[in-house]
C-alpha cells in the first residue's frame, strides 16, 4: 500500500467513533475510510501556490473584476489595486461608501480622461515646463491627468523614480498632481533609453501582487523555490508550499501552532539567547571582586578564594583578608540584611526552574518526534512483511494512519509547552486576567495536555511494537488499540486547540495572539493556481503593440529552458499560456540567470 495514500485517508475517521469497543464498528470505521480513497482538499483548503508562470494570471483575475465593475482601463485598475493592496472587496466597499470620485482621487486615478489629446497634436510647438524648451508637439506626451511635458523629461523622471524603488506609484511631474502615470507610457519611454530598467519596472509591477498584498506571501524556503502562497480568508494558518516547505503563513516561521506567533518568536529568542545560562550564573556564582570571573562555591565556609588568589566574602561579595574562623572573617562584617538582592536571586532561580520545566518537555517531544520520523522506514518494512504473509488481514492502512496521527499529535504537544510557558507565565497577560482566573484556566489546560500526552505515549508504544512477528490475534488487538488511540488523540488535539482559541486566547482583550486552526489532516497543502486562459482578450491591444515592436520576437526554442523541472507537457503548456497572455514576449523569465535576461 502506498504510504502517501494511507496518510491521506488518515483524517477521514469520524469523530463520533470516539471509542470503538467491538470489531464491527471498527470495520465500519475502516470501510468509511476506504469509501473515500482519494484525499481531496478539505473545504477550507483554499490556499494556492503562485508560481512564476501563474503570477500574471493570478493578478489578471483581480484586475479583470475591477476593470469590469468600474469600466476602467488596465493600468488604472492596477493603480487602484496597488493603492488598496489588491483587496478587491475593499475597493468595492470604498466605492459604495465614498463614491467613485473619492475612490479614484485617493488612489491617484484621474477622474476625467482627456479626450482632446488630438487637438494638442495640431499645434506645432509647445514649451515643456520642466526643461523650459520649446519643442515640437510630437516630442511631448500628455498624461491622463492632462499634464503635458516633453518625452525627455518624462523619461528622466521615470528613471529617477524607478531607481528610487517607486515603480508602483510614479506620480505625474506637475506640482500637487497626485495622478499615477500610465504604466504603458512609462514602459515605452524608459525602454527606448534603458531596456533593462524597463524590464525591472515590469517585474516590480508584477511582483506588487505579492509584495503589496497581505493575502499573498513569498514561500520562505531557503534556497527560495520561487513560489508565493495565496490564502483565501484567514491569514492565520499553516500551509505547505508545492516545494514541500511547511510554514506559518502569518509569521513565515516554521509551523508552530498551538503556540501563537508572538509567543513563538519570544520562545525561539529565549532558546537562542544565553539568558538562561546567565540566570544560572546569577543564582549559583558570585563575581570575584578582583578579576570579576564568576566563582561557584562548592562547599566550605563563606570565605571563598578565587583562582586568581583573591579571597572574598560569599555573603556580600566584598574582598576580604584570608584570616578567618568558621563563623567570621577577620575585620569583616556584613550581617545586614539586603532584601533586594535576596529577592532578585530568588526570582531568577524560580524563573530558571520554570523555563527548564517547559523547555525540557518541549525538547522531549521534539526529540521523540525526530525519532519517530525514522519509524516511517521500519513501518514500511513491517507492513511489507505482513502483506507477504498469507492471512485474513489485508489492509494495513491503520498502521500508517496511526503513525501520521502520532506525528501530528506529537507536534501539537511539543508546541503546546512554549504556549503554556507564556500563557501562564504571568508576564504577557498580567493586565488581562486575575491570578485566580488564570490558575483555574491553567489547571483546565494542563488536564487536557496531560490526557493528550498519555494517549500519545500509548499510541507510540503500540506502533513501535514488533507486530510483524506477532500472531494474527495479537495483531488484531494492536490494530484495535491503534485505531482507537488515533481517534482519541485527534479529538484531544482538537479540544486542546479549542480550549486555547476560545477559553484562553479568546478571552483576551487585545487580539495579538492568534493561532492557526486545527486540521485533523495536518498542514494544508496549497494547490497550484491554474493559469487562466480567459484573461487573454483583455489585453489584446497591448499584445499587438508588443508584437509589432518585438517584430516576431524570439521563438520558443530560442529560449534557454528554465529550471528543467516538471514534465515536458506541463512545462511547455505553461510557457504557451504566458505567451498568449499578451504580456508574454516582453516578460523575462525569472528562472533565467540575470545575464541571459540582459542579453535579451
Amino acid at each position: 500500500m502506498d504510504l502517501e495514500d494511507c496518510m491521506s485517508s488518515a483524517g477521514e475517521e469520524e469523530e463520533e467513533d470516539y471509542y470503538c469497543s467491538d470489531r464491527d464498528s471498527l470495520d465500519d470505521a475502516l470501510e468509511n475510510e476506504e469509501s473515500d480513497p482519494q484525499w481531496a482538499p478539505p473545504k477550507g483548503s483554499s490556499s494556492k501556490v503562485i508560481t512564476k508562470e501563474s503570477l500574471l494570471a493570478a493578478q489578471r483575475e483581480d484586475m479583470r473584476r475591477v476593470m469590469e465593475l468600474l469600466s476602467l482601463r488596465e493600468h488604472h485598475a492596477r493603480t487602484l489595486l496597488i493603492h488598496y493592496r489588491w483587496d478587491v472587496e475593499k475597493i468595492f466597499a470604498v466605492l459604495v461608501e465614498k463614491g467613485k470620485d473619492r475612490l479614484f482621487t485617493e488612489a491617484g486615478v484621474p477622474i476625467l480622461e482627456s479626450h482632446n489629446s488630438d487637438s494638442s497634436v495640431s499645434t506645432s510647438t509647445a514649451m515643456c515646463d520642466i526643461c523650459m524648451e520649446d519643442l515640437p508637439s510630437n516630442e511631448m506626451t500628455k498624461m491622463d491627468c492632462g499634464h503635458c511635458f516633453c518625452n525627455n523629461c518624462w523619461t528622466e523622471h521615470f528613471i529617477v523614480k524607478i531607481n528610487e524603488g517607486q515603480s508602483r506609484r510614479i506620480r505625474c511631474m506637475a506640482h500637487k498632481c497626485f495622478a499615477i502615470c500610465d504604466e504603458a507610457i512609462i514602459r515605452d519611454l524608459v525602454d527606448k533609453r534603458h531596456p533593462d530598467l524597463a524590464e525591472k519596472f515590469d517585474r516590480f509591477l508584477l511582483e506588487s501582487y505579492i509584495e503589496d498584498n497581505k493575502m499573498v506571501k513569498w514561500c520562505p524556503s531557503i534556497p527560495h523555490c520561487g513560489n508565493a502562497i495565496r490564502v483565501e480568508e484567514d491569514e492565520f494558518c499553516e500551509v505547505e508550499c508545492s516545494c514541500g516547505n511547511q510554514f506559518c503563513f502569518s509569521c513565515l516561521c516554521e509551523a508552530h501552532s498551538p503556540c501563537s506567533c508572538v509567543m513563538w518568536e519570544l520562545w525561539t529568542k529565549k532558546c537562542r539567547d544565553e539568558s538562561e545560562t546567565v540566570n544560572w550564573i546569577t543564582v549559583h556564582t558570585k563575581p570575584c571582586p578582583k578579576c570579576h570571573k564568576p566563582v561557584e562555591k562548592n562547599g566550605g565556609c563563606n570565605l571563598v578564594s578565587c583562582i586568581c588568589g583573591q579571597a572574598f566574602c560569599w555573603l556580600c561579595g566584598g574582598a576580604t583578608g584570608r584570616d578567618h574562623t568558621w563563623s567570621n572573617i577577620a575585620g569583616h562584617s556584613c550581617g545586614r540584611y539586603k532584601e533586594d538582592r535576596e529577592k532578585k536571586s530568588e526570582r531568577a532561580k524560580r524563573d530558571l526552574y520554570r523555563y527548564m520545566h517547559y523547555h525540557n518537555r518541549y525538547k522531549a517531544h521534539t526529540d521523540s518526534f525526530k525519532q519517530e520520523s525514522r519509524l516511517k522506514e521500519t513501518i514500511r518494512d513491517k507492513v511489507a512483511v505482513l502483506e507477504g504473509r498469507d492471512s485474513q488481514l489485508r489492509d494495513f492502512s491503520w498502521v500508517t494512519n496511526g503513525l501520521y496521527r502520532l506525528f501530528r499529535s506529537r507536534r501539537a504537544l511539543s508546541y503546546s509547552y512554549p504556549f503554556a510557558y507564556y500563557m501562564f507565565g504571568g508576564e504577557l497577560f498580567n493586565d488581562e486576567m486575575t491570578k485566580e482566573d488564570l490558575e483555574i484556566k491553567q489547571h483546565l489546560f494542563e488536564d487536557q495536555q496531560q490526557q493528550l500526552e498519555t494517549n500519545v505515549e500509548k499510541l507510540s508504544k503500540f506502533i513501535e511494537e514488533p507486530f510483524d512477528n506477532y500472531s494474527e490475534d495479537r495483531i488484531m488487538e494492536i490494530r484495535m488499540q491503534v485505531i482507537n488511540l488515533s481517534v482519541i488523540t485527534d479529538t484531544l488535539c482538537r479540544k486542546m486547540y479549542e480550549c486555547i482559541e476560545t477559553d484562553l486566547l479568546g478571552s483576551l482583550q487585545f487580539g495579538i495572539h492568534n493561532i492557526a486552526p486545527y486540521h485533523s489532516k495536518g498542514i494544508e497543502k496549497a494547490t497550484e493556481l491554474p493559469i487562466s486562459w480567459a484573461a487573454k482578450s483583455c489585453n489584446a491591444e497591448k499584445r499587438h503593440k508588443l508584437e509589432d515592436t518585438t517584430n516576431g520576437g524570439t521563438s520558443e526554442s530560442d529560449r534557454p529552458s528554465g529550471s528543467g523541472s516538471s514534465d515536458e507537457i506541463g512545462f511547455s503548456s505553461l510557457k504557451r499560456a504566458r505567451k498568449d497572455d499578451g504580456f508574454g514576449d516582453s516578460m523575462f523569465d525569472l528562472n533565467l540567470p540575470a545575464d541571459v535576461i540582459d542579453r535579451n
Partner: protein
Amino acid sequence: MVDFGRVQKELQECNKDINVSGISVNPKFDNLINLIGTIPGPVGTPYEGGTFKIDIDLPEAYPFEPPRMKFATKVWHPNISSQSGAICLDILKDQWSPALTLKTALLSIQALLSAPEPDDPQDAVVAQQYLKDYQTFASTARYWTESFAKTSSLGVEDKVQKLVEMGFPEGLVRSTLEAVGGDENLALEKLCSG
C-alpha cells in the same frame, strides 16, 4: 547630469524681477551646481529687515530630484535648525516636483518664515519656546535677525566706499555688490578671487 540649460534659464528668470520679489539666486563659485539664494525676511515678522542667505546644492538629477537647501545665515525658527541651518519643508523632500523651480522653493521658504509649523519641528528647542513662550521666541528671533541677517548696518554707498578704499575699481565694486545681493563680505570674496 544636471540640466544646466534649465538652471541658467531659472537664474535669468529669477533675477529679472528681483526688485519685486527681493529673491535672487547666484552662483557661489563659477559653476551652476553650488548656488546662493537670498530672501528678504517677510514684513511683519521677527525676520523683517533681515537678508537671509541659503546654500543651494543641485543634485545630479536636478530637476528630477529636489535641490538641497539650507540656511547659511543663522536663524531662530522652529522648522530650521539653529545649529546647521537644515530646513524642514515637504517640497524639499518627498513633495518635490520637477515642475517646481529654485525660485518657487525659495518663495516657499520665505512663506515658512512667515508661518512656522511648530508641530513638525526641525529644532525642538525653538519649537518648544514658540509654543510655550511666544514673546521670548519673537525677541530671540528678532535678536538673531539683527545679529546675523544684517551683516552690515552700512548703507550701500558706505559699502562701495569701503571697498573702493581697499583698491577695487568703483564700477566693478557696484556690479559685484549687486550680484551678491549687497553682502560686502561676499563681494570682497568675489573681488579677491578675481
